[in-house]
């Protein structure tokens, strides 16, 4: 019961993160939103694994935590590689 | 050498915690995997005093983390209050703050502690200073008082 409430709260926050990803306005807001979405997915999977009574799902949650971190780093590296050609609109909007 | 041992022990316990199957076959796979990873990370040159700061493991560390948890609770409540009371309650500001750590690992612990406590984020880190963004002037002033900086530096000694 309580777990369901937590899962619902997580889903609501994930929706908020998607809203922020669409609203922007800067590319960094979007990255922040994706990162937020990712960490909430980790928690959601952990909570769902207890709702469903399948603790082996926790491995999936661990993978997500990992992937989420690496995606953020990759996105940031993308900007550093991309020098002026790619970076032109950063700060104003994307 | 001691860092190699520590990374091996870390990997071994990571395997044992995750696995849950303590059969000879899987345990030997675990051993082979851990040795292989130790070999690979040595080739990568990532096993050293920075990734395994054994010299920081002393009695001060738990007390520091306990203190940090206290800070976390206080700052979380503060930020949540500001979220609910709206835009008027925040006064974002930035500043370069001096830091007194002597090693990179100490600086990283300090910077991550700043970021970990909501309300303050370390935006840039140099050898003798850190650029901080704070949600409110009070948050920045608290940090400027330097207690966290002192405590982290204390870990290094």
């Amino acid at each position, binding site marked *: 019961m309580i777990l369901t409430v937590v899962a619902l709260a997580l889903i609501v926050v994930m929706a908020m993160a998607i809203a922020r990803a669409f609203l922007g306005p800067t590319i960094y807001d979007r990255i922040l939103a994706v990162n937020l979405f990712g960490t909430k997915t980790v*928690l959601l999977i952990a909570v769902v694994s207890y709702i469903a009574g399948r*603790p082996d799902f926790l491995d999936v949650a*661990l993978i997500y935590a990992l992937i989420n971190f690496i995606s953020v780093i990759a996105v940031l590296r993308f900007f550093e590689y991309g020098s002026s050609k790619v970076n032109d609109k*950063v700060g104003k909007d994307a | 050498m001691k860092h190699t041992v520590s990374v091996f022990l870390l990997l071994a316990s990571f395997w044992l915690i995750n696995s849950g199957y303590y059969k000879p076959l899987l345990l030997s796979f675990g051993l082979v995997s851990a040795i292989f990873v130790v070999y690979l990370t040595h080739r990568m040159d990532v096993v050293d005093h920075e990734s395994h700061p054994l010299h920081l493991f002393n009695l001060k560390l738990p007390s520091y983390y306990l203190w940090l948890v206290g800070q976390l609770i206080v700052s979380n409540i503060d930020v949540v209050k500001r979220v609910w009371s709206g*835009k008027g309650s925040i006064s974002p500001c930035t*500043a370069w703050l001096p830091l007194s750590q002597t090693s990179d690992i100490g600086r990283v612990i300090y910077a991550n502690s700043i970021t970990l406590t909501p309300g303050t984020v370390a935006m840039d880190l140099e050898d003798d200073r850190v650029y901080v963004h704070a949600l409110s002037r009070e948050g920045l002033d608290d940090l400027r008082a330097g207690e966290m900086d002192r405590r982290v530096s204390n870990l290094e000694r």
Partner: protein
Amino acid sequence: MPELITLLSSLCLLLGAFLIFSGGLGVLRFPDFFTRMHAAGVTETMAVTLIVLGLMLHSGWGLPLFKLLLILLFVMITGPTASHALAKSALHGGLRPLGDDSNNERH
């Protein structure tokens, strides 16, 4: 004793859910990227700790307990690192925070 643990677990979970929601709200409400980052920070520290703690109390002694602990540790290490990297990148990308009063001594 089991009742106490259930109570504690529920308390942690509910508080965590509330914090998560507050953080999400902050990410929507706050005026610029850097302030939003603080709100996101709320969901990544205390809220994660509380929810994982609640799950740990719920799960009882066993292997999943340690896996939850691993997840918690992992999030606590990577969360601030990602935030810091993002902030640094935004700063170097030319995004100026609101109330930037450091006289732009940056090069």
